[in-house]
């Protein structure tokens, strides 16, 4: 149950890792939840599907790892998901899969989040609805 995800932190489904005291954080010890269950963190996290950056995959390939470029990985990204479209969401179907084990779906925003989205666009951000699977956040 996704709504109960926070209850999985520090439970038997969490490895309960903590950092060493962080000098830059007033020596605070920070909890690092990791999934201790088949499925790992994907079974206890916020369930967002975000692919890595195209530039990173291409760099990995250029370091001598044949087959790891963004374009070569794309068939596997697609094979991993069954995307369920929603009318309001402008998906980039050229990078979406239709027959994989992960069932993915956009979720409508709460009214306040719609306003936040509008405010980002007003601030000059480009609106790229499906940017998190398109690989184009180069330079992160």
């Amino acid at each position, binding site marked *: 149950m996704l709504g109960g995800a926070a209850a999985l932190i520090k439970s038997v489904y969490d490895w309960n890792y903590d950092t060493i005291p962080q000098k830059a954080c007033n020596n605070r010890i920070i909890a690092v939840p990791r999934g201790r269950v088949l499925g790992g963190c994907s079974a206890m996290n916020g*369930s967002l599907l975000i692919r890595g950056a195209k530039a990173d995959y291409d760099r990995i390939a250029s370091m001598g790892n044949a087959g790891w470029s963004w374009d070569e990985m794309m068939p596997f990204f697609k094979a991993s998901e069954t995307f369920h479209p929603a009318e309001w969401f402008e998906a980039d179907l050229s990078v979406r899969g239709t027959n994989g*084990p*992960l069932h993915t779906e956009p979720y409508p925003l709460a009214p306040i989040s719609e306003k936040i989205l509008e405010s980002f666009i007003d601030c000059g951000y480009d609106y790229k609805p499906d940017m998190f699977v398109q690989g184009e956040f180069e330079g992160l």
Partner: protein
Amino acid sequence: MIFTRYCFQNSLGVGHAVRTVHNGVRTTSADFVYNFNKTNLTVRTGVYVDRIILEKNKEGCEYKAIGVEAHDDASGESIIIKVKKEIILSAG
């Protein structure tokens, strides 16, 4: 869910991140092994790997991974798994 991404001080956009949830049910990486059609896959849960067994290698590299030492969490039984080909270490 809305996110923004930054490239130094240049904004690159705002968009939506889809969820791995459909009809109220979460799907996870475990779904890659449930209902897996091939018969050459064995999944053992409740078994924790303690170390990778390394052997001095004659073929140039200094060490070669030849297996893993694990234990059954419930019984404490020690388990040695040897490999012919390769070990894929997935540690989060």
